[in-house]
């Protein structure tokens, strides 16, 4: 039996490499989590001085001119919008790709191109697009003599216009690739059975396909939210006057010299992990529900 074989000679060196790699991945992050719980005298480096939630309170009071609470709400709102759009559009497109889709290859190529396009280029392009749109809107308002509207008009760049679009160019490729992976292993015979029993296409989707792909759909939602929650490069030129939390954080790296910034890091990481935890719990529940139905 191959299971009883002696370990290959390369096992231990590679196991060491793997352990060092995991340490390399987690070590620095653990360090800032620890440092964020320091006492009021704590600094940016070791040794740890005291133990308290002091720097989290400082964070809640705000860091300099930055309103952390507002940035957090903006990031949450945008993340939820991105999540919803990613789920709906990926599932729809995934269904479309199962059929003969004329031009599907071109669409697939564009989606993959978006995934590997340097983010600064996408971001710059979207920023340009909306600035040119602004110019056009202002010219139109001026031409029609709507001066009050012209004065009130700031910019069409914003959280739920340009920034939402920028995030979708990053989350949708992941969503579509997951849908591909799901439908590659999906047997169409269930749907055929449903059709033979007289189900309409919608009933077939609602009662047969959706429950089967539900765990992956939840996964796509998680991808959508967490990718948006941490996104900087694609947002940077495409967001306009306000900033999301990661952008604020990036700005703070050069100005804030207290462990408050580590506290902020701890908080955003906790949000990421809570979302992941909820997702995994949901996937597990959905999987259990399916098994329960199957055995009933």
């Amino acid at each position, binding site marked *: 039996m191959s299971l009883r074989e002696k370990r290959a000679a390369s096992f231990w060196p590679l196991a060491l490499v793997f352990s060092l790699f995991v340490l390399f991945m987690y070590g620095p*992050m653990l360090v800032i989590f620890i440092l964020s719980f320091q006492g009021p005298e704590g600094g940016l480096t070791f040794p740890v001085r005291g133990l308290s939630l002091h720097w989290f309170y400082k964070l809640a009071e705000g860091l300099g001119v930055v309103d952390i609470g507002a940035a957090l709400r903006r990031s949450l709102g945008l993340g939820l919008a991105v999540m919803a759009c990613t789920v709906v559009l990926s599932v*729809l497109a995934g269904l479309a790709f199962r059929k003969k889709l004329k031009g*599907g290859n071109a669409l697939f190529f564009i989606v*993959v191109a*978006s995934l590997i396009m*340097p983010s*600064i280029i996408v971001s710059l392009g979207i920023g340009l697009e909306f600035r040119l749109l602004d110019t056009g809107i202002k010219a139109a308002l001026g031409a029609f003599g709507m001066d009050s509207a012209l004065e009130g008009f700031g910019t069409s760049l914003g959280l739920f216009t340009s920034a939402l679009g920028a995030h979708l160019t990053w989350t949708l490729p992941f969503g579509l690739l997951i849908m591909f992976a799901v439908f590659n292993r999906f047997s169409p015979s269930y749907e055929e059975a449903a059709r033979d029993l007289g189900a309409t296409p919608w009933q077939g989707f609602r009662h047969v396909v959706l429950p089967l792909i539900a765990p992956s759909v939840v996964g796509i939602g998680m991808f959508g939210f967490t990718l948006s929650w941490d996104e900087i490069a694609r947002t940077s030129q495409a967001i306009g006057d306000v900033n999301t939390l990661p952008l604020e954080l990036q700005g703070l790296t*050069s100005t804030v010299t207290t462990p408050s910034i580590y506290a902020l890091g701890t908080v955003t990481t906790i949000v*990421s992990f809570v979302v992941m935890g909820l997702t995994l719990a949901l996937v597990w529940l959905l999987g259990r529900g399916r098994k329960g139905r199957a055995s009933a």
Partner: protein
Amino acid sequence: MSSTAAPPPSANASPAPGRSLSAWWQATPLTVVFALFFLIPLALILMVSFWDFNEYELLPGFTFKNYISVFDGCSNMADMCTTLRTYLSTFKFCLLVWLITLVIGFAVSYFLAFHVRSSGVQTLLFVLCTIPFWTSNVIRMISWVPLLGRNGLVNQTLMEMHLVDAPVEWLLFSDFSVTLAFVHLYTMFMIVPIFNSMMRIDRSLLEAANDSGASGWQTLWNVIVPLSRTGIIIGSIFVITIVMGDFVTIGVMGGQQIASIGKIIQVQTSYLQFPLAAANAVILLAIVLMIIYGLTRLVDIRKEL
């Protein structure tokens, strides 16, 4: 079978008429998003790169001024121009980060795919590697500060061991810290595709190689590496395109002192020099596309999915 008049090649796949149409209704929202937020923006970058500008606004027109200004002074061979120096520095990071992530990614994937025998443990360890990916990149960057800073853990340790008299300065805000952060952030992009490729390798091929008397290295080089090629190339494309366009990591970890193409574009947009930034973006895009074209000559990605 019989010769039917209507020859739909898709007859076996989709018996219902009009399905192609309904498929396009389903694909339309996605298509619209990529048209509005990807294709049109790219076209606008190309267009604006030929425009003129002043302090206040963009001036539609057609000029090569921006491209000429990007390569200003580049004909002088003795002293390299800023653009070439910046590209060389970006290439240097690309090559370094690519090599390091490739070696680490391959070793880690190899260990997970071929040495961990229980599939439960395998999944667990794989997930362990991917978890850090879900944390903000900036957090992962600044997490190096307490370690590498002037009074950081590494310097404290070195001083206590009397290996150095004064703190080592090149640990943070240097080429070293930038490369380290890139490896820390993006090795995952190598591990996932390589591991995926390795898991598809038929294990009996390895036994066959073993039975034919191949040494461990021969099996590795002649069987495993060629069969992991797709994963290696997909991972390489990810890492190279990310590093080529990056401005966040180089900014934060380089102490805003190190130049990169992405950084130049970002600075130019903050001064509202959009046509200049657009010209730089077009050149960056051309170079990235050439690299990807070269890499994809080696593999058909669509077929491998």
